[in-house]
């Protein structure tokens, strides 16, 4: 391992991601528009339903979590899609890079964008709906953010692997998969109301534990005795599994000629 060389390779992906985001008006649009729409629509719905302050906070935490993850995983998900769209995938894989350079470089930009969205949404929630975002303190906020970024990384790596396996049509499947996760993890409701069987499935999703952890600062009872332990350990396991899946997908792509096909 050569640290300066590795840093340059990571910076290659990070700087390219930053440039693409800067040039693409829709990248800025998706950072402001969709999170804004989510906060306004969900927040106004809670007002219409005359929900109490605690329940409003419960729902808004779900909204913040979902949008932060969605934006944070985008750069990772697009890491290969940009090359597939521009038919330049083979130039990337002929260079002496490791998957880790690609994932860390684009992941860092995703993390930065996700953090910005979190801040914007948090401020909107405080200003429009009186949510006290600071109540969990710095540690609580940091743990929640770390959990969301880990979940975003899992989703992003999964998309990269699926794109390498099935081409750009995999993007749709990835979006569907992320919404399924949000449905199961109790984004707008406690997982206790989920039907039997599905409730158990929710226990296998790390985001369930991070939402549980963050909500307990607002007076909601913890559903798990050690939400951070379960959340982080599951995240690490899934990250490892996703990385192995991506690695094996790359080998399959090298055997089947997928990289060439996606470059034509």
């Amino acid at each position: 391992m050569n640290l300066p060389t590795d840093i340059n390779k990571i910076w290659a992906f990070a700087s390219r991601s930053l440039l693409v985001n800067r040039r693409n008006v829709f990248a800025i649009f998706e950072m402001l528009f969709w999170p804004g729409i989510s906060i306004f629509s969900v927040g106004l719905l809670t007002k219409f339903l005359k929900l109490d302050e605690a329940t409003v906070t419960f729902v808004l935490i779900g909204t913040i979590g979902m949008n932060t993850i969605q934006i944070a995983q985008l750069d990772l998900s697009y890491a290969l899609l940009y090359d597939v769209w521009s038919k330049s995938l083979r130039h990337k894989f002929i260079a002496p890079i490791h998957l880790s350079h690609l994932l860390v470089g684009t992941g860092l930009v995703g993390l930065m964008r996700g953090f910005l969205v979190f801040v914007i949404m948090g401020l909107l929630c405080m200003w429009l709906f009186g949510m006290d975002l600071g109540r969990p303190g710095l540690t609580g906020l940091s743990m929640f953010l770390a959990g969301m970024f880990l979940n975003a990384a899992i989703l992003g790596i999964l998309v990269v692997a699926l794109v390498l396996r099935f081409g750009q049509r995999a993007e749709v499947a990835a979006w569907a998969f992320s919404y399924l996760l949000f449905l199961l993890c109790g984004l707008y409701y406690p997982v206790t109301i989920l039907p039997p069987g599905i409730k158990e499935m929710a226990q296998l999703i790390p985001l369930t534990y991070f939402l549980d952890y963050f909500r307990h600062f607002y007076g909601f009872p913890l559903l798990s005795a050690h939400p951070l332990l379960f959340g982080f350990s599951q995240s690490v396991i899934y990250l490892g599994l996703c990385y192995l899946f991506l690695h094996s997908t790359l080998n399959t792509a090298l055997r089947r000629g997928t990289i060439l096909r996606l470059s034509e």
Partner: protein
Amino acid sequence: MQPAIDVQGLYKSFRTGYFKPPKEVLQGIDLEVAHGAIFGILGPNAAGKTTFISILTTLLLPDRGRATVLGLDTVAEAARLRERINLAASNAHFLWCLTVEETLRFYGRLYGLGGRVLAGKVEELLELFGLTSHRRTTFESLSTGLKQRLALAKTLINTPELLFLDEPTSGLDPEMSEHIRSEIARLNRETGLTILLTTHNLREAEELCSEVAFLKGGRMAATGSIPDLQSRLGLGDHLSLVYKSGVPPLDFQRLPGVLSCEVRDSEVQLVLDRAEVRLAPLLEIITRQSPDPPEVRVKEADLEELYRELTH
């Protein structure tokens, strides 16, 4: 000295469907390419040229056989090999919204370059390929010729020892093709860079390549220098001698450099291995043997003839 490329018994097949038998694309390829050569791989569509070049550039794993490039195994030592080679494919494609300079910087960083080294290399390549005035133009706004020049510039970002060019002038107008060809020849001449190129363009191969290989149906139909191949296949230059007063009693077949001979009435058709070398001494012998000098017509052999013979 170990060859720059050494391929032994290379096989590759692709699945075309779950219930269909795999399609054999490469069927036992053997090849050696010397250091410093410009080597051409010729063949019709679907002959396996791109598959072959992709295995050598580590973008594809072979089913069987072994390929070493610069002494490194393309499978086991792929990561180390990637640092020392580069590739330009036909129809240059890069990310549409990056400028020429940003594209070069991006690929430079992928090879671990940074700081002043990267800046210097980018400047050098912009200058070398006449791209300095286009440095802030985005890729999507470049003309086809400029895109191809950028593709060539990108291949030199890591100062490779071996360059793979997959149909480098495909889709370019004749003037730009000529320019790119002269760039390739100059690179080889000035830096001693080994170049392996695939092409459909026979003139390109004739102009650039010291040796060529013909791929047909996944097999290597023939390998060698163009004159050698012509000689081996009896496809030399055509020399026609027309006598006014009949053909003199001369054993034309035994004359030096004559590959084949056909006498028809007052005309002799000879096939020579290399007319530019053989013609003068041959004509001297012929005129010495006959008081009636013949009318001489020469038609040089072309690669097209060789291509037809080997690939059809």
